[in-house]
């Protein structure tokens, strides 16, 4: 949205990085991103997972979600080495102004550049739903800092034509502190995208409020994990393979054990055969250095070409030959077809 060259790395990445750092320090288990749009933050969090076990994205625009949803699917390598901890990713279509029971009891809710897309009267509802109903342990809200706008070249009006408002720091903090009072949260304010030195006074380009619920307020029903969403619509859900899945755990365990057993056996065979070769080489007076691994299972065909696996055909074919020799009686010579000699030359025209 903003002029790309102004910040490096780009501002949206800085915002995401901010969330990642927060996740790293606070280690939430259930995280929900409101207004996830193309799911880029979710994709980031999927890698910087730390303790996250449930990752939920909500957006009102179902096309935007659908577009990139499959990028959240597990990678091939996630199946090769399942992670020790479970991870479920779900995407919902829904509005942040609706009360959805499923959304309660999260550890962290992020609203990155979301509230400025709401009408002011909706912000009221939003506060009530997020802080009053969802009551997550922590909320991260970022929104443009209107004071920064004069520094953006060529900017007239808002930064995006869908923005309904852009707040100054005071406006944002006033709203935030009001919310804190009302719902029992405390807030810290920071931001990303520092202004160049002379203008440092205007603050960050994106202001961020980090809200934490007061420990003593315990109105959150935490046992809602089994509840199915009622208002939101599930668009996508994927469960990552993990060792917490008993089947996977067993499978992995068994194959590890098998592999170890196999390598022990192989080691033993090599040792044993090494001795044998030593023996034979002594018999033939050969230098014992060249211990040939004479594994009788490794077959070579007569031509000794590179394909060391003998052609199945050839093996079978040999067997057949032997069989035939027992039943010599069968005449192998089939009569020749009555020789209507073909001549393609005449057909060529």
């Amino acid at each position: 949205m903003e002029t790309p060259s102004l910040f490096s790395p780009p501002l949206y990445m800085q915002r995401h990085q901010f969330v990642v750092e927060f996740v790293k320090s606070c280690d939430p288990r259930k995280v929900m991103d409101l207004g996830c749009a193309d799911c880029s933050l979710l994709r980031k969090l999927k890698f910087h997972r730390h303790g996250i076990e449930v990752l939920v994205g909500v957006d009102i625009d179902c096309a935007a979600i659908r577009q990139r949803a499959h990028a959240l699917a597990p990678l091939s390598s996630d199946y090769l080495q399942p992670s020790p901890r479970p991870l479920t990713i779900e995407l919902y279509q829904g509005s942040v102004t609706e009360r959805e029971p499923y959304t309660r009891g999260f550890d962290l809710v992020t609203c990155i550049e979301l509230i400025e897309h709401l009408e002011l009267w909706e912000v009221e509802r939003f506060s009530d739903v997020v802080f009053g109903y969802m009551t997550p342990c922590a909320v991260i809200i970022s929104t443009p800092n209107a004071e920064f706008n004069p520094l953006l070249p060529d900017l007239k009006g808002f930064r995006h034509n869908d923005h309904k408002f852009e707040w100054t720091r005071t406006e944002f903090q006033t709203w935030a502190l009001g919310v804190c009072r009302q719902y029992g949260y405390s807030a810290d304010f920071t931001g990303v995208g520092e202004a160049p030195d002379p203008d440092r006074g205007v603050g960050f380009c994106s202001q961020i409020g980090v809200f934490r619920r007061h420990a003593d307020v315990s109105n959150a029903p935490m046992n809602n994990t089994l509840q199915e969403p009622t208002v939101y619509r599930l668009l996508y859900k994927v469960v990552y393979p993990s060792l917490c899945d008993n089947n996977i755990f067993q499978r992995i365990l068994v194959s590890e054990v098998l592999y170890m057993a196999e390598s022990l056996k192989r080691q033993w065979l090599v040792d044993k055969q090494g001795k044998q070769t030593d023996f034979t080489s002594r018999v033939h007076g050969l230098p014992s250095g060249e211990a040939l691994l004479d594994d009788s299972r490794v077959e070579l065909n007569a031509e000794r070409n590179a394909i060391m696996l003998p052609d199945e055909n050839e093996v079978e074919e040999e067997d057949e030959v032997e069989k035939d020799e027992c039943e010599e009686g069968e005449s192998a010579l089939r009569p020749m077809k009555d020789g209507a000699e073909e001549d393609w030359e005449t057909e060529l025209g």
Partner: protein
Amino acid sequence: MDPSRPPGATRMPWLQPAGGRGFPADQPPVGRVRGLAVAAEELDAGRGRGRASETPALPYRRGIPLPATEPRSLPPVGFARGVPAPGEEQRLGRARGFLLSSLLPPVGIGRGLSLFVEPPAEPAPPVKRETVPLPAPEATPGPQEVKREEPPLPVQVDVPGPGSSLLSMMRGMGIEPAKTWGRGAVSVGRGSVGEFAPPVGSPSVAGEETAPEGVMLRGTSFVGRGLIGAGRTAMPPVGFGRGPTVSPALAPGPDAPSAIPVTPKDAPPVSADVPVTPGSSQAKAELKMEAACEPRKKAGTKGNPVVIGSNYIPIHCKNEAVFQYHVAFTPNVESLSMRFGMMRDHRSATGEVVAFDGSILYLPKRLEEVVHLKSERRTDNQEIDIKIQMTKILPPHSDLCIPFYNVVLRRVMKILGLKLVGRNHYDPNSAVVLGKHRLQVWPGYATCIKRTDGGLYLSVDVSHKVLRNDSVLDVMNVIYQQSRESFQDECTKEFIGAIVITRYNNRTYRVDDIEWSKSPKDAFTMADGSKMTFIDYYRKNYGITIKEVDQPMLVHRPKERSRPGGKQVITGEILLLPELSFMTGIPEKMRKDFRAMKDLTMHINVSAEQHTHSIKQLLQNISTNPEALHELSRWGLEISPEILVTQGRTLPMETICLQSASFISSPSVDWSREVVRDSSISTIPLYCWAVFYPRRAAEQAEELVAMFGKVAGPMGMRLDRPIRMELRDDRTETYVKSIHSQLTSEPNVQLVVCIITGNRDDLYSAIKKLCCVQSPCPSQAINVRTIAQPQKLRSIAQKILLQINCKVGGELWTVSVPLKHLMVIGVDVHHDTSKKSRSVMGFVASLNSLLTRWYSRVTFQMPHEEIINGFRVCLLAALQKYYEVNHSFPEKIVIYRDGVSDGQLKTVELYEIPQILKCFETFPNYEPKMTFIVVQKRINTTLYSYEGDRFGTPPPGTVLDHTVTNRDRVDFYLMAHSIRQGCGFPTHYISIYNTANLTPDHLQRLTFKMCHLYWNWPGTVRVPAPCKYAHKLAFLSGQYLHSEPAIQLAEKLFFL
């Protein structure tokens, strides 16, 4: 393209007046003119991408408009009709006139136009003259255009209006700017284009493009890019004709599906903004054209009809049509992503279902003919006008739609939860874990939507991916523990050429090198110029902590390839961390482990029944997944629930001829018993031959020689006692020294037999180098293990003896080929897996009418060198040898060329074949007939037998030459070999040149016959014997000899 802009601007003023006259102001004719030049250039460049085939044809086509001279006097309609015939003549005349033109398609265009101009220019004679010369040079668009412009103006003025519509038309063609006649011109252009397009082979494209394209040319730099190579070529003339006028133009056209000839008078108003004729009529025209494209005659008749299935699933298109639009941004928007973004903002107008490449838009729905949308460029708040103009109505199965149907298909596979690995999709949830080997086999599918002779099909092949639980670093650690000294060498051997999959994305990379001097601690430069170490990069972006900071880096060098845009070329190296890369594919060590491979192949080699079951499973999964169905239905695609079942044929069994015995091959195409019981066609008596064996194999060697003596008689072989050379030990030097001294002291040795112990590539390679290059002598290496089992010794000895007979120059068996003076050539290429060394081409040509004597050559070529250089040398040598043997040259030459992918067919056709033909000119008055057949083994087509509702493997000789075959080629699928295990994979044969006039029946049967002649196997093989021989030869030379074998061996099958 940019250069074109400035002139356009200058011209604008000119145009404006014209516009006042009735031309749409927004489409300055001038612009169009320029467009032409540009387009022409594009053709050259862009063509290659889409359909290279048309290029050559273009000049001719272009020539067609010329007939204009005639039409002058005729009414528009008549003109159109007359066009084709005169076109021909014209073409000839032309060609003669300007040699240059044929070389440069674009030039051709220019000329065509100018000529046009000439005739009509009556009113403004002086002008005409000018124009004519200009176009011919062609090369410099700038000045030309300017000049051209001038003429138009006067002309316009002159043209009275309706009366001289014809004239105006012509003028319009050439000159363009003039609107009035512009219209007329259009019609002409169209007509001609339409007429000629079909033969060219791009039927669908030909007609409609004109108007839109012209527009396109004008404005954007994107002009050239797009899916429609052919269309564009056609366009130039049309575009000129003037977009606006197009609709009227259509009418006059030859077939005139929508015959609404608009006279100039009424035209101006209409033409201005409604370039496209009523959709329906256009659509009809399209369809008609497609139908007109006559299918190639490729069906044979010989053999018994048999019901077979194939892994194709019919797709029905429920949409009536797909609409193609051209999208123009004014002012121009260069950034593709910005274009995409703007179009995304207008989904309300276009609907959710779109396929857009930056300038061409496909929708399953019809918009207004021209739609204007507004967007704001966010970088500078510039208001951008987006003009979406319908250019074509395509039948829903049009070739142009296939690419985005395949995008839809990939999305469907994703929706089903399948993972993309490489190019195919796999299901990790059904993975088979082979714990013993720490690897997993993922079942999956190679899917693709194709348009074949039978229509639109989903081709599904069952595929398996072998993935390893170990990272490259794990494997390196194991190697390190096993062999510290040769660690780096071992790693190179193990990893180079391997495909790895990374932990942080789903991409696969081929390892081209290992960078030992780098480590994750090293920094690299990011796109924004900043530096970052690999450790930091992976931590920051993927939250991955690198555990081993001292590992080397894997290097992947992407193939240089240009993106569809033709601009970006990916170059440079990609460095990968061993710790974050998983190995794929079967480990080398495991390949040598017979039992392990059996474990594995059990899962990978699926029978026909399992194959079809998997396919049905996929179809079932699609049909029960609402999201997948929805995705398909967006484009109106509906996948049939049934696998294709159709009728094929089994070719007649062949008669195998030995020296005196002959017999019809059994249905299992196996004559291993017969060949050891009766005399081979010819045998070479072995008077002087030597056996080398280490002391510990003395006993086996003795037994083998004794057995040789017993079994030689029935085969008609005479075998004297060999020279026995017992070696002190089995070291490579001992073998080499001993053989070498023997060969030098006794120059008459006919054959060297080596009995070797263990599985030793180095020894094998040393022996072969010595006996094939340094001291040429046929040689036979025998692993002691193969002759260790007494109960099998007899049959093994028989086989070895047959092989020896071939190597020393004997002939085993043949089949009758009823063609006289025939030479059959087989060509195959061996690529080194590590790509480090050169590729090797094996070349084998028959020397006699029995097809029992073969002349073989090998050439090495650098990675990007064309195969043809070496090919010429080989062909000339083979022809000379043929002459020596037969005292005449072959009259017919059939070339089986293996190792050509679909993408290379055009190159072979346009480049290799002409070079081969040129080869024949070396000999005076020599013009043999030639048939060139491309042989493709690695294909995704499977054939099944189908009986009583069950799928099985089809019998040998099954041929399928319709429905799933290529629309543009004479091709067929033939399964020559007998399948004992797994599924029936036929070989695909494409005849791309055939002056020998072999009928489809001949092609099929000749090919089947050739599959009988591989002497190392007493049965049929998958590919024609010469190809198989060439393959063997190339493999031996590339893998073991690393140089060309001695020329003395060229007439013997020493490489068997």
